[in-house]
C-alpha cells in the first residue's frame, strides 16, 4: 500500500462555466481553465476504489476523506476503512501554494501507534495498488507541460478540445498525455497517457460527474491500464461541499483518533 498522496480529487479536471467559452483559446488557456476551477473551501466524501485484474478478480479499497483550503495551504486527511488489514490507517497531506515548497505528508499506522512523516517525493508511485499514480490524483500545474490543441471533436455527445500535453521535464514518467476537454463545461472527459518510451499506457475515462452546490464533481472515473491489463474504478459518494470542516480535523490528534 502506498500512502503518499495527494489523492483523490477526482475533481481534478472539473471547472467553472465560462462566459467566454466561445473565444479562441490556446492549449495552455484550456488547461488553465481546467486547473483553476473553484472547488469550494472544503469537502468530505467517501472514496471507493475497485481494482480489477486481467482475470476479472476485484479488490475493493474504501476511504473517508476530508479536504479544506486554508489559503496558502490545502490540507487533506484520509481514513482507510477497507481492506480490514489497513483499517484505522490515516494519511494527511499539506499542499502549499508556494511552488518551491514540497507537500508535507504523514501516515498513522495503528499497529505502530505513531504518526510518521514520509517523503512526498515519489509522485510516480501507484496509490494503494491502483492504476492511479499520486501525480495522477494531484493537481499538476499547467506550466509543467507545453500544450497544443490537436483538434476539436465530439466525444460522448459533448464538443471537446483535444489537447496534447508534453512535459517540460524529460524525465517525467509520461512522455505525453492527450486530454479531451468539454467546451464550456471545462471537464477533462478522457485522458490518454503515454509512457517514457512513447508507448500507449493507459486511459482515464470520466464515467459520471455531478453538479453539487454549483461545483462540478467527478463522481465515477475509470483508469484502464492497457499494458498491465488492469483497471481501477474510483467512485465518490456522500459528497459534501462547504460544510465547515473544523481546522483541527487536519491534526495528529485526529489521525490517531480516526473516524470516532
Amino acid at each position, binding site marked *: *500500500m*502506498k500512502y503518499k498522496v495527494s489523492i483523490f480529487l477526482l475533481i481534478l479536471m472539473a471547472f467553472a462555466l465560462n462566459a467566454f467559452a466561445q473565444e479562441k483559446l490556446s492549449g495552455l488557456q484550456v488547461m488553465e481553465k481546467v486547473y483553476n476551477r473553484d472547488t469550494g473551501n472544503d469537502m468530505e466524501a467517501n472514496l471507493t476504489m475497485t*481494482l480489477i*485484474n486481467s482475470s476479472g478478480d476485484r*479488490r*475493493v479499497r474504501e476511504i473517508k476523506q476530508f479536504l479544506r483550503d486554508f489559503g496558502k*495551504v490545502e490540507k487533506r486527511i484520509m481514513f482507510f476503512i*477497507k*481492506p*480490514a*488489514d489497513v*483499517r484505522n490507517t490515516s494519511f494527511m497531506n*499539506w499542499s*502549499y501554494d508556494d511552488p518551491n*515548497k*514540497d507537500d*508535507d505528508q*504523514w501516515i498513522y499506522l*495503528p*499497529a*505502530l*501507534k*505513531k*504518526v*510518521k*512523516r*514520509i*517523503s*512526498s*517525493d*515519489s509522485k510516480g*508511485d*501507484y496509490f*494503494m*495498488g*491502483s492504476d492511479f499514480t499520486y501525480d495522477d490524483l494531484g493537481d499538476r500545474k499547467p506550466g509543467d507541460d507545453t500544450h497544443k490543441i490537436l483538434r476539436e471533436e465530439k466525444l460522448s455527445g459533448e464538443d471537446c478540445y483535444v489537447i496534447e500535453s508534453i512535459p517540460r521535464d524529460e524525465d517525467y514518467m509520461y512522455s505525453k498525455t492527450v486530454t479531451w476537454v468539454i467546451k464550456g463545461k471545462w471537464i477533462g472527459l478522457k485522458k490518454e497517457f503515454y509512457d517514457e518510451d512513447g508507448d500507449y499506457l493507459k486511459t482515464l475515462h470520466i464515467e459520471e460527474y455531478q453538479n453539487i452546490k454549483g461545483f462540478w464533481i467527478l463522481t465515477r472515473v475509470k483508469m484502464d491500464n492497457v499494458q*498491465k491489463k*488492469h483497471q481501477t474504478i474510483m467512485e465518490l459518494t456522500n459528497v459534501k461541499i462547504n460544510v465547515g470542516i473544523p481546522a*483541527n480535523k487536519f*491534526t*495528529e*490528534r485526529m489521525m490517531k*483518533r480516526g473516524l*470516532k
Partner: protein
Amino acid sequence: MKNITSFMVILLTVAGLQAQELSLTGYARNYTGVLLQGDHEFSIIQNTFNLNVEQSKDKVAFKVNPYIYQYSNQGLELGLREAYLDVYFNSIDLRIGKQQIIWGKADGVFITDIVSPKDLSEFLLRDFDEIRMGITSLKADYYIGDNTFELVWIPTFTPTKFAPEGSIWRPAMPSFPLQPVIDHSKETVKSSLENSEAFAKFSALTEYVDFEIMAGYAWDDDPTMHVVKHMDFSNPRQPVLTGITVFPEHHRLTIGGGSFSTTVGPFVLRGEGAYYQGKYFNSTDPMAKESVVKKDYMHYLLGLDYTLADWHLSGQFIQQAILDYNESIDKDRYSNMATFLATKDYLNETLNLSFFMYYDFNNKASLVRPKITYDLADDFEVLLGANIFTGTSGMFGQFNDNDMVYTQIRYSF
C-alpha cells in the same frame, strides 16, 4: 480452558447483542516456524485470535483488545492487550485503562519509547503491537493547534516480560564460577503511590519539522542482577567461594530526551536521544557492592528514509554511551548498532518483498529478517520469512542457534 471459553462466550454474546453499534475487527492467524539447525525442531506453532471491540458515542469511547495464543505444546494464553475508556473534551482527551503508549521517531529501537514495557517472549520477532504490553494508566492530552502536551501516570510498575525458563528465547545469564541461586525476593516493585511512574511529553507537528520533548520518572524495565558471593573464611589466607546468589532488582530511572523528524529534499531525516540517570550496570570490580555500579548513560539515533527505484529504504545508526565509564563495567563504553530496511511492492501491491536487519557493531552480530508477503485475497495474507542470527555474543549473537524459517497466514476482518 474453561475460563477462556466462558470469557469468549460472554464477550461474543455481548458483541452479538450490541453488534449494531459495536465495531468488531481483528484477525485470525496461524504462525509456524522451524529451526534451521539441529533436528529442525518447530520453534513455534501458534494459532492466534485477536479481537478489537470498539464503540464511540459523541464524547466518549472504549476499546477492548482480547487475544488468544494457542500453542501446539503449551496450551492456551489469553490476555487483554488493551482495555480503555476515552473521554474527549474540546482541547483535552483523557484515556483511562490498559493501553499501549508509543513515543519517539525511531523504528524498532527503544530510546524515548519507554512508557509501555516490552513482551520479549519471542525476543523481538513478534509484530510490534504484540511486543508492546498495555499498561494500566491515565493519559491526558492537551492540544493547542498542532502542539500537544501529554501526561501519563502509571500507578503500578510492569517490568519487561522475558521468555520463560527453557525457551529458546531466554536471554543468556552471565557466566559465574559456580551455579548461582536466583533469589526473586527483591524483584517485585510493590504497588503503591510512591512506586508509581510518571511521564510527560510536549510534541509538535509543523510544516518544517515534527519533534517531541519528553521526561520520565520511571523504573528500569529490566532488572539489575545484584550478585552476592558467599565465602568461607575458615582459612583466612585462602577464602573459598562457596556460593553465589543473584538478586534481580528494579531501580528507579530518571529520563529526559526528545526526537525529531523532517524532510530534506527526497529524504526523511529522523533523530532521537535520551539521557538516563541512575542505571545500574554489572561490574567486575571486587570493590563494587553486589557487583553493580550506578552510572548515567545516553542513547541516541540518527535515521534516514529514502525511495530509490520504488524500493523504500531506511537506515538508522544507534549509539549508547555510558558516562563516567570505568573498565570494570561489563558493557562497552560505546555500544553501536545499525538497522536497515528495504521494502518494495509488486503486482499492484499484492506482493511485498521486505528485508530488515539489525547489526551490532560491538559483537559483530546481526539479525537478518527477509520476508515475502502475498495477498491471496483482500484481507487474506500469506507470509514466508526467515530470521537469521549471526555472531556468537551480544543481544543477537546469543541466539545464533535459533535461525528459523516461518510462515504466517492471516485473515483480517
